């Protein structure tokens, strides 16, 4: 992005008078705003990344648990299917 592009879409912002007096120039104000925003964006991205790491870790833990849960239900299902056969035999019926 060249300087012309940067200035092609501009917005006006209102700077409190005391702050303008304190900093002294528009250029310094713009630089401070930009650094402030970049700093805020960096903090926000750090949080987003930390959140993604946490969510990924939580899912990895859950993914490690799930095969055991699936296996447990498969064992229960097999047992229930055997019982169904037994029950059908006791009732003398074939389903």
């Amino acid at each position, binding site marked *: 992005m060249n300087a012309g592009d940067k200035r092609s879409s501009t917005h006006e*912002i209102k*700077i409190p008078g005391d702050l303008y007096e304190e900093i002294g120039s528009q250029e310094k104000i713009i630089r401070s*705003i930009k650094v*402030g925003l970049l700093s805020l*964006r960096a903090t926000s991205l750090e949080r987003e*990344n930390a959140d993604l790491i946490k969510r990924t870790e939580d899912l990895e833990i859950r993914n490690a648990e799930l095969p055991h849960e699936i296996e447990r239900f498969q064992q229960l*299902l097999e047992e*229930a299917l055997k019982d*169904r056969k037994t029950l059908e035999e006791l009732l003398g019926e074939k389903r």
Partner: protein
Amino acid sequence: MQLRSARVKSTLIETSREIVALTKELNISLNPEGIRNIIRLGRESLNQEAELERALKKLEEERGHLASNFRKIASQNGQLESKCVETRHQFGRVSRDNRVLAMHLCSRTPKDKRQSKIRDEMIQKYIMNYRNA
């Protein structure tokens, strides 16, 4: 555009597209209080603009990798959860059928001791101690 005559009050200054884009991305308002906070943050920052831009690029790249990894793990999770739910439901269905069969069994007289034992076990399991899956 500057209104230098009103310096002691507020002063209007032009800002760049980049700043506007950043405020939108961060979902913040550049009202006088917001401006004051952002400027304070900018002045307190120990990093220069170029350093921050480099750090942001790195963080964005890192987010890309993390997001891609997260999507992969989430997809595996979806498959495993689905398999788990399916197996649990299958077990639940067979178990409920067995309960109905065990109820029918209550009215039947067993032919021998072996049948009597199994009948009691099934009634115990699917009627007396029955729990929904």
